[in-house]
């Protein structure tokens, strides 16, 4: 009996570990970053560390532009693909495609960035215009990053719809597509919406692939077209931390960017897991 209690205590400590980590991340980030979190940081239009100017507004806008475009592209390809896989494809086709999609989930992002840099960027430069490193390149690369996950989760929620629903609709003389549109999609919609919100969060937090193709100008500006170069929140941290002096306001500003990222992504995850999924349960 005694050892049983000790074991359960030890296991509880292990389980609390991830909570402790998240708590510590919050504390440490805030401790370093909170002094920079003021309106001139969030809405300042100039980021220029050697002039002690730390405004992330252009970076924030750039990030949102890239993320929004990428999610739209990924949705346009991913959701119909998921519908096809779960509703219209023969079993063996689905198996092959699903397994290969699952294999690609989590493919090292640096490899995707490398592809973007070596193939996509020159292609855009030669055929579309600009320097090649651009919002457009960011869209494509990031869409690629979130696509496999989106397909997998969306397909899972479509398949979770009981077969009896489909049979009931088909038995009433509905076509396959009418059944999908009127019965299957509404039942799976909360799962799909959660997948999309999670995808937005993942896109926002993604660092390497995007960093390698969006250009990261020294002094970012608010983008005016899709061929403009931009900076991402994540890439700013990654590029500048190595030359930011420890203890300088530059370092605090980078941690403040971490705080902003942390809260945006956590809010999105919260919405996806607790608001959308809970609604589904009720």
């Amino acid at each position, binding site marked *: 009996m005694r050892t049983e209690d000790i074991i359960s205590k030890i*296991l509880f400590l292990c389980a609390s570990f991830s909570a402790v980590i998240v708590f510590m991340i919050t504390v440490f980030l805030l401790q370093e970053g909170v002094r920079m979190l003021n309106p001139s940081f969030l809405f300042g239009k100039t980021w220029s560390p050697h002039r002690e100017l730390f405004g992330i507004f252009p970076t924030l806008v750039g990030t949102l532009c890239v993320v929004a475009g990428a999610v739209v592209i990924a949705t346009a390809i991913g959701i119909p693909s998921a519908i096809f896989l779960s509703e219209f494809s023969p079993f063996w086709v689905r198996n092959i495609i699903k397994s290969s999609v699952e*294999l690609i989930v989590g493919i*090292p992002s*640096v490899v995707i960035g490398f592809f973007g840099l070596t193939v996509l960027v020159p292609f855009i430069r030669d055929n579309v215009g600009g320097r090649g490193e651009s919002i457009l390149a960011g869209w494509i690369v990031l869409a690629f990053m979130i696509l496999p996950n989106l397909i997998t989760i969306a397909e899972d929620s479509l398949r979770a719809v009981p077969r009896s629903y489909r049979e009931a609709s088909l038995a009433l003389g509905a076509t396959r597509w*009418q059944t999908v549109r009127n019965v299957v999609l509404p039942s799976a919609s909360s799962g799909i919406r959660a997948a999309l919100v999670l995808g937005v969060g993942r896109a926002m937090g993604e660092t390497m692939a995007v960093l390698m193709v969006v250009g990261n100008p020294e002094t970012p500006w608010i983008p005016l077209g899709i061929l403009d170069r931009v900076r991402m929140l994540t890439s700013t941290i990654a590029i500048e931390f190595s030359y930011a002096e*420890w203890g300088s306001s530059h370092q605090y500003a980078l941690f403040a960017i971490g705080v902003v990222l942390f809260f945006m992504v956590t809010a999105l995850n919260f919405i996806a897991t607790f608001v959308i999924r809970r609604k589904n349960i009720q």
Partner: protein
Amino acid sequence: MKEAQKEKAVRGLLYVTVGLSIVILPIIVVWVIANGVGAISLGFLTGRPYRFEYGGIFPQIMGSIYLVSLCTLFGAPLGIASAIYLSEYASDNVVTRTVRFFTETLAGMPSIVIGLFGLEFLVYYLKLKTSLLAGAISLSFMMLPWTIRASEEAINVVPKEYREASLAMGATKWQTILRVVLPAAIPGIMTGVLLGMGKAIGETAVVWLTAGSGLEAFVPRTLKSPTGSLPMYIYLIATQGHTAEGLQNAFGASLVLLVMFLAMSVSALFIRNHYLRRLGS
């Protein structure tokens, strides 16, 4: 008639998008293999990098293997223990719901934020320097929630009847978990751990901030040695290399990384499918 036509149109559209996914998704794998095979030679796999973009990648390969092994050593037992607690001991109350919420939060945390935390807490605060140890621990923070999730799922699929049969034999809860539940859940847990390892080996931002510059010419000798890794190497050479040989090396390193990644995810999926088939019978 009109509905039937609509159905056809929709089907056509779906074929196009799924065709697009089928073409787009494997394109990078094919591209890396096509360009990378030429770069692979014994000298490249066993040599050291010199003058930035020349030479081989042996220290990077070993660095990546060390980082991932050490990260698994920290992350996997902790993750499995957490999953056991959450699925076998925890009743649904405020404490466990909080723990669950934080686990989900950690799962969604951008890797660069984890890297920042590792940099501040491990590298500076605990004075581990940018090192193998700091990198591996930071990676394990990233891997932890995935291991927890996968192990929890694997434990939950173990039929309740097994637990009852064991308890009815006079086994304690822990004996039951150790002798019946875990052996049955092992394939699922391994799938989760392998997928987590695949994530860790490809992770760049975290090791960039905590493990080392990436071009280290030596295999790490102590836990406090700065450690190069394949993703960092690829990033540096791809963005800052200037010569054809540099590009060639970036392709070679990408191929090696991809092979290691695919080895992990293929075996993960293989174990999972094999195991599911066995449970189904």
